[in-house]
């Protein structure tokens, strides 16, 4: 029986949390196929956190260690994953649709000559074929696809495949590789202002034109901080286009599509292209002075009123709740 290859992510020698989501998605396929999950992580040395991979359903955890892989090496990683996928005769290869996965998955797919279903939000197996569901038009519609390649290659949208504990052996292996890193090299990673990315954060607090001026985003940053490092600040297209916030924070069809556990929209009216980017959030809170704003039509909870009064109070209450 063909197994499932889960391609994990690490940074600075530590497994990234999204890796457990990848294993969870891979596990789902493996259960349906009656096969095993083999997790692969690439690094320049031992990767901490791999001992947790078994807990979420990895039968084997393979660490490929090579001198060129201190940082993400696009071409060398593609070579390693494609070789492994080919030699192992895998039924499916599962990655995450993170910045790295979005770069790596198409390269692997092209090398294997197999289709990639990117950014999927649901996965099943029907008649031995991987069936993936993925949002299109930034979430205004869902496309269900049969991925007929062998292997079927899928990348999972972050924050959707909540890690589920399904303990397996997680047998650790280390393989030394001499694969060249390739022509494209990551010289350094500059840390961004926010430690947590809006596309990955479990909580997103987003601001729009209702904040009136760039300096007022301090109120949102304070709220994000009150959530104890689990929240990222997001922004509407209007304020990004106005230059108030960086494009990396933009939520919407021409920005990022996010699915956090909690999305707080502050001073955002809810244009269709913004709603497309955040409608799959688990819980949506809207704060707006206009009770007829479209954002209230998708919000689970709303407060109508002056955000400059509401935000400081909310920050205080959240801080208390976390205290």
């Amino acid at each position, binding site marked *: 029986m063909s197994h499932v290859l889960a391609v994990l992510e690490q940074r600075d020698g530590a497994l990234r949390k999204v890796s457990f989501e990848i294993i969870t998605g891979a596990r789902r396929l493996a259960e349906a196929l009656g096969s095993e999950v083999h997790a692969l992580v690439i690094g320049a040395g031992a990767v901490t956190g791999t001992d947790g991979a078994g807990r979420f359903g990895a039968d084997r955890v393979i660490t490929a260690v090579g001198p060129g892989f201190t940082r993400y090496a696009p071409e060398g990683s593609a070579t390693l994953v494609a070789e492994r996928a080919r030699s192992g005769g895998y039924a499916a290869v599962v990655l995450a649709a993170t910045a790295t996965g979005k770069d790596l998955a198409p390269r692997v797919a092209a090398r294997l000559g197999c289709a990639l279903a990117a950014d999927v939000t649901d996965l099943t197996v029907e008649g031995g074929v991987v069936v993936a569901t993925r949002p299109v038009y930034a979430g205004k*519609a869902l496309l269900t696809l049969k991925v007929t390649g062998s292997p079927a290659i899928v990348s999972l949208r972050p924050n959707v495949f909540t890690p589920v504990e399904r303990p397996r052996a997680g047998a650790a292996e280390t393989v030394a590789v001499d694969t060249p890193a390739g022509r494209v090299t990551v010289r350094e990673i500059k840390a961004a202002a926010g430690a947590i990315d809006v596309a990955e954060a479990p909580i997103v607090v987003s601001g729009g034109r209702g904040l009136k001026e760039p300096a007022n985003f301090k109120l949102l940053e304070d709220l994000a901080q009150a959530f104890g490092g689990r929240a990222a600040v997001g922004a509407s297209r209007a304020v990004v286009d106005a230059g108030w916030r960086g494009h990396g924070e933009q939520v919407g069809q021409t*920005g990022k599509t996010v699915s956090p556990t909690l999305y707080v929209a502050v001073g955002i009216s809810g244009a*269709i292209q913004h709603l497309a980017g955040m409608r799959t959030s688990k819980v949506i809170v809207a704060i707006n002075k206009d009770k007829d704003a479209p954002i209230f039509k998708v919000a689970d909870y709303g407060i109508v009123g002056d955000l400059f009064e509401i935000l400081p*109070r909310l920050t205080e209450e959240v801080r208390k709740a976390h205290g």
Partner: protein
Amino acid sequence: MKIAVCIKRVPDSATRVRIAPDGLSLDEAGVKFILNPYDEFAVEEALRRKEQAGAGEVTVLALGPAAAQETIRTALAMGADRGVLLQTDRVPADGLAVARALAAELTDGGFDLIFCGKIAIDDSNHQVGPMVAELLGLPCVTAVSRLEIAGSAGTAEREVEGGLEVVEFPLPAVITADKGLNEPRLPALKGIMAAKKKPLEVKPFQGGVTGIDVVRMTLPPERQAGKIVGEGAAAVPELVRLLREEAKVL
């Protein structure tokens, strides 16, 4: 400097999506189509690189229906020199099938740089650019928000979770453009007039093998409007209680 830009005709981001009677695709009735916003950054960057080099040619390449000629004309009006359309009534859902066709068209072009948008806002596949690069055996940097070229070496910045990667690569190369890379110019009247006379070649897209079968397109479940907890700051304690006890997200 010889540069190619891969572009796509997509529905405007303000489009309200309705499903076509086939249950597999978008109902295009009344839909306004635009040049994919990320491809605008790609076209703009190509024009700037050509302008800096002082000489060269920018070719735009699209795969799509006959109406995508208008999309190509938009890029020509911005300043691109010539266009090629690989014409088909239906763009494959399999990005690799698209990439194969684009790569076959680009392979003998002798391009120093090939630009794409990092993602098309319709199918959101974010894969065609790096696939084209792999098929052509070229280095590729994806989702680039800053680019420097010096001779035959490039440095790019790309956003990753919580940071910016600084990436070095040799030319020729494929670059996919992110927002922030530049501010795309609006076509001027003179450019629009000139674009009408620029060469635009139309070739049939042959299709080919695809590894994706679309089973259905559906609308996502409607979100139920929730409740207005209250007005003003006085409603905050109740909101926090609901988030903790009812929604259980705190």
